[in-house]
């Protein structure tokens, strides 16, 4: 990775933190520049506007999550085992890089006007959604999961995980999030199995 790419990534990582903590509208470009110890002018060399930065941040997050799920998809294991690994990896990211999931839940889903131009539909989350599609398609093809509309399955899987991470973020869960991995994986599998 070049120096410029590294810098770009560090800007995105700080933005994810600030956006998810203070919200998209309350976070300014000078706030982000200050947190990175760089000038506002220099930051604009990397991202032409706050909206473009926000859109690139969701693409970055989606691709990161997608690459983790791809690592699971290419393994020669059952759909049941894959479900558990996807739950594990999702919760691990929620613990190690909470800003990523928080950003998705609290900024991307809540500030649709920011993403209207350039991120319509699945355009900016395709890195992640594509891997979930590949997982579902192959699991139905192998006969392990029941054939149904993609979104009814996607909503069950990702809505569930997102909801748990949201509860964690609100400090409502009485247990550490890892405690729930086994039961959640079994619940998802039972709901989707053929």
């Amino acid at each position, binding site marked *: 990775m070049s120096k410029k790419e590294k810098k770009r990534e560090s800007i995105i990582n700080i933005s994810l933190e600030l956006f998810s903590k203070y919200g998209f509208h309350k976070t300014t470009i000078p706030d982000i520049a200050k947190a990175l110890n760089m000038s506002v002018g220099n930051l604009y060399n990397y991202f032409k506007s706050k909206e473009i930065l926000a859109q690139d941040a969701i693409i970055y997050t989606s691709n990161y999550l997608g690459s983790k799920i791809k690592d699971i998809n290419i393994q020669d294991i059952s759909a049941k085992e894959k479900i558990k690994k996807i739950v594990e990896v999702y919760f691990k990211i929620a613990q190690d890089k909470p800003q990523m999931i928080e950003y998705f839940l609290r900024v991307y889903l809540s500030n649709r006007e920011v993403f209207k131009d350039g991120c319509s539909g699945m355009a900016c989350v*395709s890195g992640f959604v594509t891997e979930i599609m590949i997982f579902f398609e192959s699991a139905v*093809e192998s006969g392990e*999961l029941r054939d149904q509309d993609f979104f009814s399955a996607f909503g069950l899987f990702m809505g569930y995980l997102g909801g748990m991470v949201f509860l964690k973020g609100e400090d409502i869960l009485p247990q550490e999030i890892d405690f729930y991995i086994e039961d959640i994986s079994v619940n998802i599998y039972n709901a989707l199995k053929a």
Partner: protein
Amino acid sequence: MKKPKLKLIWLQSITCNGNAHSFLNHPELFNILENYQLIYHPLLNSVNTIEELYTKELECDILILEGAFKRVGFTKFDKEVYTIAKAYSNRAKWIITAGTCATFGGIFQEADNISGFVFNSELKKENFNTYKDKLISIPGCPIHPKWIGFALDMIANGKKILLDDMLRPKELFASTVHQGCVRNEYFEWKVDTKGFGTKEGCLFYELGCQAPYTRGSCNKIAWNEVSSKTRVGTPCFGCTEPTFPKNSLFKTKTNMSIPKNVPLGVPKRAYLTMTGVAKGFKIERLEKRLIDYED
């Protein structure tokens, strides 16, 4: 001295006659046949009768086989058709399997012990090795008249026909039926058709079109000079493929709404990424009817 005409035999095994009939639609049929002497053809005036075909050893430069084959149990004039086909194959300089049945088995491969002359679906039979130096596969249900016309013209003019690993002419089968489809713009932007027979929309997402993963030139060499299945709003059935026929030809097979089959040679991950992006945009021009007809 005038070049002697090549002696042509069109031998039918288990067939519906569709390929022989289709060839009759070639607008240049008799110009093509100028170079050939019809020793036997099931529909056109020939030197010999069908009985002579089976009971005599006729001369043969080019043998066209139509229909699926059964090694034992399908006879004409008390002769096994397969045995007679082999005898003429040994004598011929070129063998063309005309149609999916003769090539891969086609619809008849559903029955036991019936297959193509060269393949059993995708599996090579011994005839592949025995005759590969003089074999040309032209699958199709039926074949396009111009496909067989192409092969006959090339042979008559002493031109080499480049073949793929299933012995199909690359000129005709190197690309997919999707190439040249007039609905490609709808495929690019993932706009479904609203039903059969309309001018608008792509048939791949709902109506079972197999053109993106079927080899053939139906949309490059139009049928009856003007048309193709997809042009008139009917899905491609993949009739040139070794796996033809499949089931539910008017419905796209999906797993959780995701197409089971994606365009030939395109990784599913790449296809889904492209689709996800394209579906995010609504192109109004493509969503509308092209022409609003008055009642």
